[in-house]
């Protein structure tokens, strides 16, 4: 990405910012989707990420990677959303629209997303608490270092290490439990 687009956007050029959205939409959307496991929520979260980036562009430090900065906004937003959801708190505009479409009629857009591999992955990482899940995705999918993860999630490096350690144990246990399941059913 040409840093000149970022500089232009920082000086209020909306067209330059739109270029940034086009460039970074997929890494941001992908993180939101893996965090939230659902297309509509992921789209809302990714849109909100870019809006927050737009509002806070003056605070972005050009010495840091722009992608890392965006992923940080997205990760924090998704973690907050899931905390709120767990506590049963919804902002008014977060209530889902009542969709009158018949869920049995296949929707080609949903079809792509709900394939069995993605579902299995979602079930696996959904066991983790949201910050641990974010750390795992950032390390093993985005290839971030522990230092980068600590910046993205606003944690110390040692906190990232202990979160990853706990997450790996939980992931291995989930795989083990899945393997035992058919044996239990056969008894």
């Amino acid at each position, binding site marked *: 990405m040409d840093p000149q687009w970022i500089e232009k956007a920082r000086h209020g050029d*909306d067209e330059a910012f*739109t270029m940034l*959205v*086009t460039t970074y*939409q*997929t890494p*941001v*959307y*992908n993180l939101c*989707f*893996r965090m939230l496991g659902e*297309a509509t929520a*992921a*789209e809302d979260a*990714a*849109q909100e990420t*870019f*809006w927050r980036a*737009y509002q806070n562009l003056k605070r972005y430090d050009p010495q840091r990677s722009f992608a890392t900065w965006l992923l940080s906004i997205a990760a924090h937003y998704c973690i907050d959303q899931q905390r709120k959801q767990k506590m049963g708190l919804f902002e008014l505009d977060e209530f889902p629209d009542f969709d009158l479409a018949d869920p049995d009629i296949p929707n080609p*857009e949903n079809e792509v*997303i709900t394939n069995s*591999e*993605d579902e*299995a*992955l979602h079930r*696996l*990482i959904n066991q983790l608490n949201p910050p641990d899940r974010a750390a*795992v*995705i950032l390390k*093993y*999918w985005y290839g971030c270092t522990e230092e980068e993860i600590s910046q993205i999630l606003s944690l110390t490096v040692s906190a990232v290490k202990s979160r*990853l*350690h706990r997450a*790996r*144990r939980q*992931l*291995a*246990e*989930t*795989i*083990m439990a899945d*393997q035992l399941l058919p044996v239990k059913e056969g008894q």
Partner: protein
Amino acid sequence: MDHQTYKSWILNDELLSGEDETQLEEHLAECRECAELKANLYTALQMVRSAPQIAAPPDFTQRFTASLAARKREEEKRQARALTLALSSSALVIAFGAILIFLPEISLISLATGCVSTLLRIFEIVQATASFVSGFVKNANPSSLVTVFVVVGGWIVLASLTLALSVWKLAIKKVGINS
């Protein structure tokens, strides 16, 4: 080295020195639990690593541009409201200050003396009432004293009965609404 150490080596997922690596390999050959842990962890991490990238839906940027315009309008309105509020409240403060400074009759000192004299007047009225009551009680004959007590006492009882009745009525109404 004990089993727990090997377990935490596996879960740390960090590169080991050649010597530690050999030790771990030896332990894995004889400890089924650690071997399973390592295999299960590998399966899980492989699932994460090999997940396909989910692309943003088509028209994502167009939707962003549209909502950006709407949000900017909303933000401008909000800022305008905040500005109006700030301007009108500071205008009020300035107007009040100007009155205090430019109108000598309503200066701060006159306001303060006004407050003090009002308080004094209230105090005087209370004192006069008290002295009238005590004078009346001392000088009046017993029969008129009894009459006054009956009238005043009756009035107080009637007033509190009315009050109690209206409170009771209100309570009944509330219960009616709730149930």
